[in-house]
């Protein structure tokens, strides 16, 4: 069998930033965002361009934190939820960084980090950036109903986050400051069809893919959940989380309190009207940049598994009644220069 686990040697995430909108600012992680904008327009004339502006801002913050110039970046892996990833394309225009567009639905954040780490194994690549965004207003327009439509959402529905996360990655030797955290290993996810087609219950559609990735990663690396301080999923929400625990239990694995879901961390479920939690590729990216990476940098967390979860579907595939296929790439992040896999 081909090797599933990619071990990365001396790769660090040297800088990161998170940007959000009004709801994200009002959530429990609001204080940790680098920037937010109440109107969600970010000075643009359409929601689609607003998302691009927001992504651009996140990258600008990540670059500014280590006083870096866009010219220093060899390659950016970036994507969003819009058709043909137009938000990202427009947002990245002013930077003029060599760009590889990626799409993994809400798993794009982890996908970009994984690809950046792989690219850095080539010595010609000095510095990579990974960037992801999603915007509630642009996503609603594309996937659901008009913004001003007065209807009720299903209790299992999730709220697309207006958020973006940007990350700069390099080898230890190119880090501008002492290495604070390490991207030690990664694994691309398999597309998993859980047999569900309800677009207002995406957490349930993605849970089987998350379970497949967690089980595979643990068995391939011969590690147990207890060895990780946290196993973090992207945007399963409350429903997906419930079902993930059930599938894992069927397979004899229990994560317990160790499991965290970015979709449940971004908003305050009791105070904000967001139903089953947050979703969108900006969700896991912003939560990673605003919460988990700082915790790893400071040593509060030593080792985590991070898997953004993507629901691979389009408005047409949903209308045609096709199943929503899930995917969940995994990365292992560790504090300082620790690397469990070398």
């Amino acid at each position: 069998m081909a090797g599933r686990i990619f071990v990365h040697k001396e790769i660090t995430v040297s800088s990161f930033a998170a940007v959000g909108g009004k709801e994200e600012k009002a959530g429990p992680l609001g204080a940790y965002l680098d920037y937010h904008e109440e109107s969600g327009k970010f000075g643009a004339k359409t929601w689609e361009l607003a998302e691009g502006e927001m992504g651009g801002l996140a990258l600008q913050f990540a670059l500014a934190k280590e006083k870096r110039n866009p010219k220093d970046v060899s390659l950016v892996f970036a994507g969003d939820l819009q058709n043909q990833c137009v938000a990202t394309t427009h947002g990245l225009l002013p930077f003029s960084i060599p760009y590889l567009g990626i799409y993994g639905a809400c798993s794009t954040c982890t996908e970009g980090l994984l690809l950046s780490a792989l690219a850095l194994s080539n010595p010609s690549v000095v510095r990579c950036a990974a960037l992801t965004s999603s915007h509630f207003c642009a996503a609603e327009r594309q996937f659901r109903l008009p913004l001003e439509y007065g209807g009720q959402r299903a209790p299992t529905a999730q709220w697309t986050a207006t958020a973006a996360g940007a990350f700069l990655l390099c080898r230890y030797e190119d880090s501008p400051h002492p290495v604070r955290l390490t991207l030690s290993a990664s694994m691309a996810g398999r597309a998993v069809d859980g047999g569900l087609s309800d677009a207002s219950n995406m957490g349930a559609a993605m849970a089987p893919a998350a379970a497949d990735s967690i089980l595979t990663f643990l068995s391939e690396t011969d590690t147990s959940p207890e060895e990780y301080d946290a196993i973090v999923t992207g945007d399963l929400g409350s429903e997906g989380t419930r079902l993930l625990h059930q599938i894992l239990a069927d397979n004899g694995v229990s994560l317990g309190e160790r499991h965290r879901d970015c979709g449940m961390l971004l908003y305050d479920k009791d105070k904000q009207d967001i139903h089953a939690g947050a979703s969108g590729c900006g969700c896991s990216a912003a939560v990673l940049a605003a919460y988990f990476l700082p915790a790893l940098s400071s040593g509060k967390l030593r080792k985590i598994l991070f898997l953004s979860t993507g629901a691979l579907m389009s408005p047409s595939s949903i209308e045609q009644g096709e199943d929503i296929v899930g995917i969940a790439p995994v990365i292992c992040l560790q504090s300082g220069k620790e690397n469990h896999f070398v």
Partner: protein
Amino acid sequence: MKFDKEKYAKESKKGAPRSPLLRNGFATFWVGGSICLVGELLYRFFLSLSLLPKTASVSATVALVFASALLTALGVFDSIGRYAGAGTLVPVTGFANAVVSPAIDTKSEGLILGVGAKIFTVAGPVLLFGTLAGGLYGVLYALYLLFFGM
């Protein structure tokens, strides 16, 4: 991974949180009822202006459609709809919202390709099948009159 699709489909439905029926039903009836009450008051108001009953009834409908279009444009209707559900959806107010909201949404794509092409994305099926059903009923009624009429 041990995973059974059929069992999973059942499991995902069984444990999922349900819509709060009692709360939603309550909101639906009081908001929907109030809208109908406003309609009735409008109807009487128009009658008092010595409009014919038929004209007064159409005028009341038009006034309700206008109000809900205005509230949609002001960005208030979606919040009311989120609370009231079928209470605002079933009366003519819901239909107005279903036409105006895509119109606002697609303004950024221009008058022709945006508003013009997409204004009926939500209300389209109702318009199409409503018109078809009306036509079909008309044909059946004509046939009825032909064979069984006076």
